[in-house]
């Protein structure tokens, strides 16, 4: 049984933009539990993620199709990052899932106005987060993505 996120036979890259190390580990652990083997790239804030996506430090072989984005981060927050990529012709069609602790209406409205694919509240318990990732994985698998 192939649980992996793929496009045809090819696994799509996933970018996690998250500053909290435990949260990064959390995602990794949840992926592992759900047998998600897609390549996972990690950036610690919005600025870093932009540099990564634009390949300004090292050239990128392939753009990640899915981004998991935290909102509260140093240097550049999630909403600011979203604004930047939606202005960028090359990056504006990326699927972004917001994964945050913020239950603020304002954040949700701002995020959805920037065409996000989903808004997920980080649950407290690992168990429920694993469930959430599983659901996400199923969703990603359903979706078709354009070819480059």
């Amino acid at each position: 049984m192939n649980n992996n996120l793929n496009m045809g036979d090819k696994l799509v890259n996933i970018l996690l933009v998250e500053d909290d190390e435990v949260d990064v580990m959390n995602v990794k652990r949840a992926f592992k539990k759900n047998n998600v083997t897609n390549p996972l790239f990690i950036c610690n804030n919005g600025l870093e993620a932009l540099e990564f996506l634009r390949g300004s430090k090292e050239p990128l072989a392939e753009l990640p199709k899915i981004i998991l984005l935290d909102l509260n981060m140093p240097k550049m927050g999630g909403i600011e990052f979203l604004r930047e990529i939606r202005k960028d012709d090359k990056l504006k069609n990326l699927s972004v899932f917001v994964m945050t602790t913020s239950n603020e209406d304002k954040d949700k409205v701002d995020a959805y106005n920037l065409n996000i694919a989903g808004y997920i509240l980080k649950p407290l318990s690992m168990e429920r987060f694993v469930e959430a990732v599983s659901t996400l994985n199923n969703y990603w698998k359903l979706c078709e993505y354009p070819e480059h």
Partner: protein
Amino acid sequence: MFFEGLIRRLYKMRIGTRTAISFFAVIMVVLAFTVGALLLLQYGKNIDIKIAKSYSPVISSIKNYQDLIEESGSLAYDIPLEKNTLKKNRLRHILKRVYNSHKLDLINICQEPGLADIKKRVINADKRFEKIMLVQKEIIAFSDTLEKNNNLALRDSMLVRREVIETEINNIKLDLNETSLMAIAVFNRLTTQKFASYRTLSYLLLIMIFAIMVLSLLSVYITNVTIIQPIKELSGILDEVGEGKIINFQSHIAREDEIGEMINSAQKVVQGFKTKEQVANAIGKGDYEIKVPMLSRKDRLGKALTEMRDNLKLSKQRVEETIYSLESTNIRLEKKNKELDQFAYITSHDLKSPLRGINNLAEWIEEDLDDKMTPESKKYFNLLKGRVHRMEGLINSILTYSRAGKTLETQIEIDTNEMVIDVLNNSDIPENCSILIDDKLPIIVGNKRDTFEVFNVFISNAINHNTSQEPVVNITGKRKGTLIEFCIADNGPGIEPEFHQKVYTIFQTLERRDDVENIGAGLAIGKKIIEDYGGETWVQSEKGMGAKFYFTWPA
């Protein structure tokens, strides 16, 4: 015409002058009539004296004179017939002495002017008697001669003379009788005059009484017209002024007396009030710059108005200052409140990440160690996770509390019947619990989420803390004046009065959290929202009697 002219003249007179004139008039009338009466009395008295003086002496004098004449006549008659020295001497005495005194008396008495006629007649009679007296003297002389030598011729002539005087004396006597009657007539006339003067006097007195009555009536009329009427008119006006009605009035007659001055004073008073009223109105309408006209330096009302105006101006300034400072304080407070909410929000938000980290790490350790852990360690781990969950609940409550309040957008009409059903559908209701809802709960205006939160807080509170075997929750709501009052009553354990305020304080629970997992923020959140909408909430309860939670919502 004459009367109007008189009244106009009277109005121009001072009351003192008028009173003096009327007094003077009365005094003059009384004086005049008194003098007249006195004169009349004097006149009557004079007549009386005349009567007293003249009447009886004149009559008696005439009588005496008559008697004298008669005696002399009879003496002279007797002398020629017999030798009578006694009678002769008597006649001599009468002729020499008695006659003279009687005549003198009579003439003297008849000197009064009213007795002129009588005097004339008396003198005439006297003249005639004087002739008789001469004859009588002849008779005496003849008698003397006859005593010496008897002469027949002489005796005859004596007899002749005797006859002559006898007749003459009778004539004089008759004449004097007539004179007496005439004198009586004169006195009668005088008496008549006297009575006439007394009658005149009585008429005079009647006229005087009448004149005094007329004068009194006139003075009463004048007093009425010139004093009482204007005073009545004026007191009527002053009564109205006293009742607070400030009216303009103009006296219809220009007067220069004290009443006129009084009317002028009253007009001044009314005018003063009128001006003050206008000023007070202006001040009442907020014109604190208006100049208060002072009637004089002693104008206390003016001073009071000035003071009132100044104090009002001052208080207005103070109120404005207070309002300004209150407004700025309010703005500062609002800012602080927002900051506090923001602080609570950010703090709790930031607290949540490490908490989740702790939880994750604990779970991973538990997972990784799994069967290597002792049952005790597992219990500790469970306790650790439980505390982390409780802390998350607390943080979430702070978040909710910090954001609770009146949501300004999307205020709509909400049917609370539907709202209560909605809340109940979203609640875990135990099987044995019965919920009673008023048939017609009112419609309120508010944000849907805010009202949901409020009803949810009270309903879940009533259900969750109900320890009764058959829990009952009764939801009612009715309009009370400008507010709508809702009541959520339960048959739970009830709350002792000392905790009635405490239940609304955030994180205040009445039971240990280890016994009943309860954050203790619901009622605080509900209260915050209700008060933000301008309502109130309170509890009615006794230990063991259930609890009634009330809250009001503006209609």
